């Protein structure tokens, strides 16, 4: 399967992608084969349903939200093609050395991705409703709305420094300074 997939991928594209994202050729080929596996109808793009077919994503509380982000921010028309797919994943490539940091996998872009998980209206602010939504997804269960609202208020109060009852990207980053988000938001791509 892997060898077949790599044939379908144009050599120029491959080089291009590798250069831009910092992936090794083998990694890209592997990801391409993965892409092909997910793309069951073989139409060159992934849809929401394709991604939801992955059982782990399906049961993950944030799975749908993540797919939302992927589809809306990285793909178009609820579709994502391979190039977009690989640029998305390039964000999470582990940068072993300073030199291998590309424009994609900086700490900032990773945090930005996280921020976008909350901020669905792209106003660069996480407001209370957005936080509530995410909290409901994550906490789950049949917890009373009041309690979730309390948690949300609490969280906003923790982060909010300018008192506008919403979290800006800067405020968001500030609290994450002490968490090595860079490490946690990275993964090993098999080659």
């Amino acid at each position, binding site marked *: 399967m892997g060898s077949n997939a790599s044939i379908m991928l144009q050599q120029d594209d491959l080089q291009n992608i590798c250069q831009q994202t910092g992936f090794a050729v083998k990694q890209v080929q592997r990801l391409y084969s993965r892409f092909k*596996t997910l793309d069951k109808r073989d139409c060159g793009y992934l849809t929401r349903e394709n991604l939801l077919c992955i059982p782990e994503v399906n049961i993950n509380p944030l799975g749908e939200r*993540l797919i939302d982000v992927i589809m809306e921010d990285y793909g178009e028309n609820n579709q994502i093609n391979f190039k977009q797919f690989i640029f998305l994943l390039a964000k*999470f490539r582990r940068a072993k050395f300073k030199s291998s940091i590309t424009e994609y996998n900086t700490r900032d872009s990773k945090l930005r991705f996280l921020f976008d998980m909350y901020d669905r209206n792209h106003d660069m602010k996480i407001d209370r409703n957005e936080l509530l939504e995410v909290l409901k997804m994550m906490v789950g269960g049949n917890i009373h709305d009041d309690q979730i609202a309390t948690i949300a*208020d*609490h969280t906003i*109060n923790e982060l909010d420094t300018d008192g506008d009852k919403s979290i800006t990207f800067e405020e968001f980053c500030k*609290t994450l300074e002490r968490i090595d988000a860079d490490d*946690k938001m990275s*993964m090993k791509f098999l080659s």
Partner: protein
Amino acid sequence: MYKNKHSIFLILILGLIFHKYYCKEQTYIHNQAKPPRFHVAEFNFDHVSDVYAITLWILLGSLAKVGFHLSHRLTEKFPESCLLIILGLIVGGLLYITHLAEQKAYVLNSDTFFLFLLPPIILEAGYFMPNRPFFDNLGTILLLAIVNTLFNTICIGLTLWGFSFTPLYGGTQFGMLPCFVFAALISAVDPVAVLATFTEIHVNDMLYIVVFGESLLNDAVSVVLYRMFDSFAKIGQENLIPLDLILGFLSFFVVSLGGVLIGIIFGVVACFTTKFTEHTPVLEPLIILVYAYLAYLTSEMVSVSGILAITFCGMVMKQYVSFNISKKSDATTEYVLKMLSSIMETIIFMFMGLSTVSDHHSWNTGFVLITLLACLVFRVIGIAIFANLANCWRLLELTRIDMLIMSYGGLRGAIAFALALILDETKIPRKKEFVTATIAVVFFTVFLQGITIGPLVKCLNVRRKQIEEPTMSAKLTNRMMDHVMTCLEEISGSGGSNSLRDKCRNLDRNYFKRWLLRETPQEKMDIKLLQTFKKINMQSAMKVHDTSKGLVPTPSSTTIHTSPSGANLRPSSTFANFSQLLAANLPEQTVPDLMFFESQGTEHYHDDAQMHHFLDTNLYRARPRATIHVRSKDEMADTNNETNNRFEKSYHHRNHIYIPPRLDKEQLHGRKTGRSSSGTNRLTGAKAASSTQADHDSRSSKHSLIPSYKRESFKSTNSPKQRQQQQKSKSRSKSPPLSSDQPIKSLSETKDIDQPIPPVSIVIENEDDTVKMDGATAAERICPWRRSSLPDGEKLTSTSSIDDPSNTSHTFSNTNDPNLHSGPLTSANFSGAYNKSAEYMGEFATITKPEEYVSRPHVRDLFNNQFRTSDEKQENNSETASNESVTRL
């Protein structure tokens, strides 16, 4: 300081000497005595000698630890373990010189060590193992623990054996197998020493867990290797067949996996047991400890790795037990574990020092030096090889500095020593040299490396462990990262540690939690997130509680803090009080967000005041104290003002009836506090109180939502009145109610105060002047007019903001209605305390009635009529009521 410490030790030792000698003398006399006579008192040291000695040792250890920590300079420079060893050396030296006790009595006994001293330390380590870093680094840890230990053993053994052909050892011959036995015990990194050293230097979690995990898990390897070579030595080199090696290799799996399995089984059983302990919570900590100890003993019994068993037992238990057992038991377990492990560690190091001073030594310079060198060199080499190997799959590479610290942190300790002590001298003739060399290595690593590792870590700028308070946002984002990375790993098809963890978590939730927890968690519910939230809330609540202890609201806070506090406080409606709230273990119950008050930035005056009131309303249930204070306040209001304030406030909040006449009451017990600000407090407190009542009375909740600007305006309009009233009631409080005082008051009040206040103030004055009233009758009396007055109040809200005070006051008095008020305290509860002056109430009722007549506007005729009737009723009832309560009491 030093003198103190030494004198303590000297006294202890002298005590011991005294006991020994006295005891001997006594027995001597006993033997000589001709006919036995009855003894008035007997001295029988033998009866308790063993336990007495143990207890004394423990005492000495604890006192030593206390003493060391009194001197900050000492503990800063030297790790505790070093100091304890030195102490042991000193005491051992003294005992050796004086020949007080036989050496057997104080030399570390390996049975004692393995059965009593070691398990608590390991259990504590397992119980408090940071699971996340442990499992994240499990691959590396296993590689280091197994392969690196094996590598070290073989290399050290070969080197030692190889050097025996050179004249370095001074002509002493060492067999190959004894060398390997020794290598097996000396190559294992010691968890006790690592723990003692690394907890003091605070390196980052990853580094700590890699070194410590290695030291824990290499036990299996070192036990197997030690036992294997030991038995090989017994079998004899010439009788060995390859089968023995294969069996030894197999036994490694049996020992390690068997230990893990036994640990997990006992852990699971312990969790299952705690499922049913809700009626016997006192035993919960014991159950945990006993199961863990059983796991250790069982695995020792079947000769698998006890350390692994107890480690995993602790880890498994920690996961589930803390959900089952009560909060107190949880705290107790943790504390007992910490205490036990700390004292055991102390004793171990002390005994290391003690045992050093003995006759069982045979110093062989060449051997000791070679051992030391081999240990150091092969540690560095091993780490370099295997850390680089681990880096191949690690996401987070180990840097050179990490490797250096890892190899430097390879401390040897008491386990090696205890193992060396139980060597069989008939089979291994060079036992004494081995023991000496072991002690040398242990001392070298503990002293030299232990002392220098702290500065080294600082010098190399190793990332330190960040000790921070958990924040909700951090936790939330962490969880989000986990979820996102799991999804992405699945999408990209590169199953990493995240997706593996996710699978484990699902398995855990679907099966283990279901069987082992009292309450099965709900589908997809994130307990951890809620737990964090609750923990944070608890912390901030405690902090606020502590800081607000002596809090006196400042006069500057004249404005009411307007904020969505109502929304924040509302969840508290599910709890009647704070203790219930603290007791809430269940994830579906949450706690009011106290953090809110802290995060309000610089305007802490308002927040503190608010918080103070919020806590007061929720925290105190102290019925008797409140009444006591009320009763005694007239006598000692000035002397004990702060505490009085505190309790009285809580008292007032509990009884919402007392809130309205804030103007009146304020200086009664808040004389020292800023007046206007305490007015604010009262209001906010009332607000909180009313919001807690939301469930019970929809009307009151409606009122609690009155826009705060109205209150502010009311505040400002009220301030002059306030002062007047303050003066007035001050005089009144000092001189018990005089009828002459009342007319004046009513006159002045009628000018300033709006209509509805007087009726309420009557109630208050009654209370202030310790009126006796029976609860039931009081409620009856109070109800009618209150209920009827309520519509008026509501009407007023819509018409004018000036009338707000009346409005709010009515609301609150309404909440006091016993039918609606479910809080623990009502006026009825206090009625018993006031029965001394029955006539006061009647007096007041009559006197205050004119007030009503004078100040009554036209609009409220209906209300007034009703009030008058109720008042009259009060009058009539007062005496009967008082009689009733007197008889009842």
